[in-house]
């Protein structure tokens, strides 16, 4: 159930030139599933900024965010000790019960964060996540070691080939040596489309949309699906492969 609260920054530092890690202390009970997100009030910006929860425990949650515009740049300037106003526990998140044994986790750029919490949850349930990550180039790579430290197999691709395999996340599929029964993915829409086309199993895809509220009130983030209109913020951001309806 989504809730509003104040969270204290305990860590806020760059992982790459463009991607920051922020750890916040506060009430994490609104979080129930990996792939949920928070909506961050940023002083000086009118709308909140939606950011996936990459990881959480009883009293802290972790955000991994890329510097894009004014909001994320201001977030990067916040210092430990400062308080942030969050709407927490937003969205449906990934359903891990859909995977029975082995899942492919395919992430691109700032689509990678929610897969970390997902990998942890799958491991806790005794399942095997195989992680396929794609970035633009070696400088942009983050969190491969953290996934590996969980005990996951991690495959890496970069568009320019400066780290891992040259190409896209989907180019890593042929390196997957184990059979998998499900996939989970998050990343830019072209990547989601490619994954949708390339993975023959069922799976779940996490979408992005510009948001007014993040908790289902404004209809700002609606998308058409085969099961009717859905709000990315409330009925998503995760949709099942079977309901996805691509707009041309």
């Amino acid at each position, binding site marked *: 159930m989504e809730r509003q609260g104040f969270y204290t920054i305990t860590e806020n530092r760059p992982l790459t030139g463009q991607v920051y890690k922020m750890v916040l202390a506060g009430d994490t009970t609104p979080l129930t599933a990996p792939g949920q997100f928070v909506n961050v*009030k940023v002083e000086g910006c009118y709308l909140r900024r939606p950011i996936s929860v990459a990881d959480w425990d009883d009293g802290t949650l972790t955000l991994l965010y890329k510097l894009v515009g004014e909001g994320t740049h201001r977030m990067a300037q916040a210092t430990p000790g400062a308080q942030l106003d969050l709407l927490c526990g937003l969205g449906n998140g990934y359903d891990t019960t859909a995977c029975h044994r082995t899942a492919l986790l395919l992430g691109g750029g700032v689509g990678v964060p929610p897969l970390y919490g997902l990998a942890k949850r799958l491991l806790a349930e005794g399942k095997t996540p195989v992680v396929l990550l794609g970035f633009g180039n070696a400088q942009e790579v983050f969190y491969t070691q953290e996934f590996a430290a969980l005990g996951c197999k991690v495959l890496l691709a970069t568009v320019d080939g400066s780290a891992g395999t040259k190409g896209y996340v989907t180019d890593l599929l042929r390196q997957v040596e184990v059979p998998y029964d499900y996939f989970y993915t998050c990343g830019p829409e072209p990547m989601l489309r490619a994954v949708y086309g390339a993975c023959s199993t069922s799976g779940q895809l996490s979408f992005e949309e510009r948001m007014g509220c993040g908790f289902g009130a404004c209809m700002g983030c*609606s998308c058409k699906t085969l099961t009717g209109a859905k709000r990315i913020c409330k009925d998503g951001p995760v949709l099942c492969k079977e309901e996805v309806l691509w707009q041309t």
Partner: protein
Amino acid sequence: MADLRVSLSGLVLDNPVIPASGTFGYGAEFKNFYDLDILGSFSFKGTTLQPRFGNPTPRIAECPGGMLNAVGLQNPGIDAVLAHELPQIATFFHKPVIANIGGFTVEEFATCCAKIESAPQVGLIEVNVSCPNVHEGGVNFGSTPEGAAAVTRAVKQVTSKPVYIKLSPNVGDIAAVAKACEEAGADGLSLINTLVGMRIDPKTRRPVLANGMGGLSGPAIFPVAVRMVYQVAKAVRIPVIGMGGIDSADKVIEMMMAGAAAVQVGAANLVDPYASKDIIEALPAAMQRYGIARLSDIVGAALA
């Protein structure tokens, strides 16, 4: 004890604060945040005769002190609202609700409002002749006195509930439109709807909104809203519900002094789900600060 009650065409509200249409859905998303019975009322999402998906996304853009939306009246249609949403609302809101109605032809407005006649939960009908996001080659009735009056007359013929016409601020002379509605029989007026605006993404060189233009709301529009409420309250004798950028008890008081008998809170609910509650709770202290015993006393105080 501060007296917060206000009255709209016989409908007495415990306080003047009404979440605005389109920013409160049909209430369900907010009932988890607080007990909605503290509200004066709420105005549900603009509802049309037929179900609508609305415009393509992106539908939202950030602005200095506000936001643009081009939702385009997404709603399940009046029949679904009567069959499903109103019974749902009855489980968590025990006061008369405001039915916000959109449409594309005079007949459509009238048919919709006639259907609502059967819903005792609805205390007041707010007829939105001013949505800036749905001119599908159609007319924006709110931009001319004649158009607004035609809708008013048609709706008044089919309902016994108080009819408030929601006016567009994208006009040269809002008092003229207001007067036309009054003459056509409107019981009251709601204003302002959003100002038409646009943002462009310098990276893509295209408008941020898929729809191109959208409606600006939030604190940025507050001075324009106060001015228009003032002009309209001066021009008509029917009650005015004032809105546009309200996000504090002080702004409620300012809007009421400009002539609003009650107020609506829109975009503020989206960035802070507790906004309407916080405003209601802050009103008594603000009244004390300005020596106001009965809130209804200040309606139009600045008009003198």
